């Protein structure tokens, strides 16, 4: 490892060392405000260094890279973490969560996401994935006054441990088959493996199972609603965006680095994607808890994302990156609204508590409407462009059946997104007023809504950027 590689690691170093420093500071100074402010500035500094400072290096110690693609996602996760910490300020104070531990864990999780998005080796993928999963085990359970939080933490821990086992076994099989941890060689080795090829394919399948657990594809999605319901809402806002998005980014990188190994898996991925979209959409319909509903919505989105990957064309991959970005912005904003309505003891999660809330809090409910319409895929928002790009790419790559399933799932999704909007605006005003929210929280909402509308009206801005960074 030389000096250039060290400079290329600056964003991760800032996140990890800043997190450790804040952890130490939290041992002496218990005031949450300065610690959270420190965390926000560390995340922003990491984002800035990814944007301005980092030289493009192809290989950092043979594990990671700082290609423009990796830098884009490092910047994006750092900004997400900063926004997530901004909405946590009041939440952490009112629930008396441990600010030092909370901030440092969020920053470490962000470092893990950045590493995962930039991994060029199976070891890098494993390390990045484990880094943020480990932080989330603790963050999900960090509200010790809430039993649901502990239950969610335990469920995530058990599921995560199973997924880790699958991943380690899969990586071992891939190594046995191809003789390399480095992704391009590992994929090429699979093509030229001969007698060991079935074992290599089994290894990739097990890797896919582990990834399926993390981004909750359908047979492995059962933890998602329970964990989202029980975990503290700001943590969910990062869990739904950063953790899923980083795994998706790594998956896109896997597909981009060598499509030859994936042709055997096309039918499997086809089935996973179709099942994920349909089951996710159908399970979301009867939900009455908005956090569970958004959990199932995230399941549907990950299924739709797989379509773009399956195409294995540059259009499909670009559409997938666009889709991940837009999904993360809208999802972060939705959970930010729930956080901003939470007071010291409770938060409106049951749909009964949202009845007629549109008349009491017109601005925030209007913003939630825009974000939900983006998740559903209505035209003026970025969600429409994202879905359009995915379906366009899939039809061009001859996956017409899958595109039809995706459009069907999107139509079903409209029902549950519109249900929330109807409850907010078209019922009697029976719900009690919620917390008015602070200026900081409102500014996060403004950023998310602005981005959703901007990329919806001018999608070319983001598409041009993605076209130039894709590996």
């Amino acid at each position, binding site marked *: 490892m030389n000096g250039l590689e060290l400079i290329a690691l600056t964003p991760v170093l800032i996140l990890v060392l800043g997190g*450790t420093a804040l952890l130490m500071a939290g041992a002496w100074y218990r005031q949450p405000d300065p610690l959270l402010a420190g965390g926000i500035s560390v995340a922003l500094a990491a984002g800035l260094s990814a944007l301005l400072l980092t030289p493009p290096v192809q290989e950092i110690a043979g594990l990671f890279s700082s290609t423009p693609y990796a830098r884009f996602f490092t910047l994006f996760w750092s900004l997400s973490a900063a926004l997530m910490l901004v909405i946590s300020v009041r939440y952490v104070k009112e629930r008396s969560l441990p600010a030092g*531990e909370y901030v440092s*864990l969020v920053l470490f999780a962000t470092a893990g996401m950045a*590493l995962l998005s930039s991994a060029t080796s199976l070891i890098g993928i494993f390390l990045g994935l484990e880094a943020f999963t*480990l*932080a989330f085990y603790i963050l999900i359970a960090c509200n010790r*006054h809430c039993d649901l939080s502990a239950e969610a933490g335990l469920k995530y821990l058990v599921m995560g441990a199973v997924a880790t086992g699958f991943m380690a076994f899969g990586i071992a099989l891939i190594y046995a088959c191809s003789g390399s941890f480095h992704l391009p060689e590992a994929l090429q080795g699979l093509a030229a493996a001969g007698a060991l090829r079935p074992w290599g394919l089994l290894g990739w399948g097990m890797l896919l199972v582990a990834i399926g657990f993390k981004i909750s594809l359908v047979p492995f999605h059962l933890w998602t609603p329970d964990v989202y319901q029980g975990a503290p809402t700001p943590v969910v806002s990062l869990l739904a965006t950063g953790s899923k998005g980083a795994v998706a980014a790594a998956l896109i990188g896997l597909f981009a680095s060598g499509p030859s190994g994936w042709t055997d898996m096309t039918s499997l991925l086809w089935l996973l994607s179709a099942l994920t979209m349909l089951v996710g959409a159908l399970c979301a319909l009867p939900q009455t808890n908005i956090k569970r509903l958004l959990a199932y919505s995230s399941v549907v989105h990950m299924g739709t994302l797989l379509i773009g990957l399956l195409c294995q064309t540059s259009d499909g991959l670009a559409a997938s990156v666009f889709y991940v970005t837009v999904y993360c912005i809208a999802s972060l904003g939705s959970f930010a609204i729930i956080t901003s309505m939470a007071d010291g003891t409770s938060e409106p999660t049951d749909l009964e508590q949202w009845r007629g809330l549109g008349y009491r809090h017109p601005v925030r409910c209007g913003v939630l409407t825009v974000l939900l319409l983006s998740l559903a895929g209505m035209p003026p928002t970025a969600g429409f462009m994202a879905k359009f790009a995915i379906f366009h790419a899939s039809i061009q790559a001859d996956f017409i059946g899958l595109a039809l399933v995706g459009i069907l799932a999107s139509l079903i999704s409209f029902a549950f997104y519109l249900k929330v909007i109807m409850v907010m605006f078209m019922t009697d005003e029976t719900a009690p007023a919620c917390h008015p929210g602070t200026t900081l929280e409102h500014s996060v909402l403004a950023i998310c809504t602005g981005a959703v509308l901007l990329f919806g009206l001018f999608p070319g801005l983001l598409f041009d950027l993605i076209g130039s960074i894709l590996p």
Partner: protein
Amino acid sequence: MASILFYILGFVMLAATLLCVTCRNPVHAVIYLVKGFFALALMFYLLGAPLIAAWEVIVYVGAIMVLFLFIIMVLELAPREQPQEPGWQRWVPGLLLAASIMICTLLIIFQDPSAASHGPNHFVGPREFGEALFGKYALAVEVVSFQLLFAAVGAYYLGRYQPRRRNEEDQT
């Protein structure tokens, strides 16, 4: 020779872990797991990684499983009642596994099968291992060490007795 030992050890390991999972008595389960780890250590030795084999015994068997036993003792999970019969049958699987591990160990000691077949350069010594770990994979080691740090932080925070005390202190 080495491949025969490999398959025997593999069978022993599978049997031991299977018994560990199906066994109802937690102390017995720990003993079976220890046997599985011993078999795994021998397997690592056969693959030319004596350092990993030693660590498998020292860290997993010596430290982690003893810790498990302590936890079972402290939480009083072990069944209190004495077995009704003398029950020599329940000794049989454990003894068989232990005997086969013992025989394999003796075979490896007295006629080192992997050294004979692969030559002296096959074994990865501590120096080579350390150079790879802290040279090529230094970054990975750093990432793992940070993971362990945050795991310790989380375990301390989540496992702390009486979480409300600190908040009350802050308020007073």
